[in-house]
């Protein structure tokens, strides 16, 4: 389904969805929204992407992080090396991908890891209360007041866990199914 109109629209929409999803996550405490809805919105862009480009392309473009390029590090200064890594990991990743070299160490971000991180965040947000002598999941609040978020506390951590989990799950399901 790679029509040029759809493909372009999707490419544009993905970052919008991402930002919007984080927004929904953060304001969920005071307005409709929250981790679940946010996670779904965040992952929806990738569903589109999978539908238009296929699983492999999606994985290649978004779920491989090029961490290091040792050879380059020898040639350049530290600052340039950092820049290079940033470049490799952001805008120009496709171009780097094309000239495959062993020096690029690639880390796969598996959806399972996202799921596990989400669960871990959610479970651990409760532990903070537990180890301060209260029951599990007792909320601890910071004194700050941030515009959209309100007062951040452990519940926000919990919500972020839900977000990541839902994100990971939708990705996992979509990838597996689309590969069929």
């Amino acid at each position, binding site marked *: 389904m790679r029509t040029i109109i759809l493909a372009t629209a999707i490419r544009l929409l993905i970052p919008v969805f991402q930002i919007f999803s984080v927004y929904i996550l953060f304001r969920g405490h005071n307005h409709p929204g929250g981790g679940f809805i946010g996670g779904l919105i965040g992952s929806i862009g990738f569903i589109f992407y999978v539908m238009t480009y296929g699983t492999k392309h999606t994985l290649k473009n978004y779920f491989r992080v090029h961490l290091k390029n040792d050879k380059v590090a020898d040639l350049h200064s530290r600052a340039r090396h950092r820049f290079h890594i940033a470049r490799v990991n952001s805008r120009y990743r496709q171009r780097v991908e094309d000239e495959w070299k062993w020096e690029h160490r690639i880390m796969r971000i*598996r959806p*399972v*890891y996202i*799921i*596990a991180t989400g*669960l*871990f965040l959610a*479970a651990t947000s*409760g*532990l903070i*209360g*537990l*180890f*301060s*002598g*209260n*029951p*599990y*999941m*007792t*909320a601890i609040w910071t004194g700050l007041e941030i515009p959209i978020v309100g007062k951040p506390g452990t519940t926000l951590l919990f919500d972020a866990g839900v977000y990541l989990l839902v994100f990971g799950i939708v990705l996992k399901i979509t990838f597996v199914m689309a590969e069929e």
Partner: protein
Amino acid sequence: MLQLHHLLLLLPLLLPLYGAIFCLFSWNRVNLQMAIACVIQLAMVVASGALLYAVNHEGILVTQLGNWPAPFGITLVADLFSALMVVTASITGAAVVLFSLRGLDLPRQDYGYYPLILMLQMGVAGVCLTGDLFNLFVWFEVLLICCFVMITLGGTKPQLEGAIKYVTINILASGLLLTGIGVVYGITGSLNMAELAMLVRMPSINKSLFLMASTFFIVSLGIKAALFPLFFWLPASYHTPPIAISSFIGGLLTKVGIYAMIRLFTLIFVVEQELILAFFTITAGFTMVIGVLGAAAHYDFRKILSFHIVSQIGYMLMGLAIFTTLSIAGTILFIVHNVFVKTNLFLVSGVVGRLKGSFDLKKLGSQYLQRPFLALLFLISALALAGLPPLSGFWPKFILVKAGLEAEQYTIVGVSLCVSIITLFSMTKIWNEVFWKKQPETDETEPDADRLTKALLYAPIIFLALCILYIGLNAEAAIGLAYRAAEQVLNTDLYINAVLNR
């Protein structure tokens, strides 16, 4: 700083959760997952043992999650009964995990078996420890979906075939359970089990509506516990997955359903009790009889065991139906004993199946001469299942019979005794066919197992057999515990006061 009882109540839930998380993090490294699972299981046994110890010495433990007062947040409660369940589950889980190190084929282990079994344990602990009706539903769903996945893990044809029935019927059950919870909320406006128990005992509550609500719980929990007109999913599916899975599911899950029934029908649904108990009595009788007849009819090792699960659920329900302290104690003891025994029998069948490559009784034989030690282990579990003294099965049966006769419920006692004879018959059928009979000629060669594999396969069976023997021989400890647990279960004021902190 950290308060111990908060931690104790949570460890049975958090340990498997964190174990599962770490297993997910080490997704492609099975060996690491094995190590994590083993360590977590060991820790679970210790933690649940500590919980039981604490409950035994200090009475009912309560923690209000999130520090919200009782009816508003979610409460975790551990009385003796639930602590016993948790201990039983964790011991069984440890045995099964040990078994599955070598008893389960590697691809299955690779595809998330360990996180699944850990989350399943979390679900079981959640059901046992929660003091909130909706939370109960959530944990039921957790263990349900874990079961779905574990039953289909591997995706062989029989597995899929069994799973489709299992999944459909259990989804229905969940729907009905949710509906029931909705009705209860619609009547009382509360979800906390202790508060509900308090409300139900007030004159202002509409008793007939509450009776109506209880039917949803009878049916949905009855499906999960595999009662008579609702048990069909169990024989359809439990014999299809690999043994390491079906032993855990078959050993534990229906008992969790019975646990929930006992909890709810002693605590909350106490309106029009004669009616409910009469229904339970009839159902218990039919469950026993139909289950055991199914076992008598079949010639497949695992199918026989599956039908026996149904039959034994009848005994447990019978204890609830008689509704005296003694009978509830009998049921509690029966649950504990039956989890061990059933798991162990499944594991024995797994060893036989793994070493001989078949579960069909007609194709097996000569195991008595080839593996006398395994025969002994099987005999211990089988006789315990049939309730022969002085193994663990005898005491709960005796207690139930005693309680039943004291309560003048002669019919159900008679039925239960006849059923136990047929149970004995079907167990000896396995013994006759698998162990005594001469091996029929087959051209299949026996897969050989190395020493470590054998040790890992046998170790959990020996361990569980020792548990069975321990319960049987040192019955006073177990019975005393069960009796006190039953007293706690029936003395609802204790529960209500502990939770609502009055």
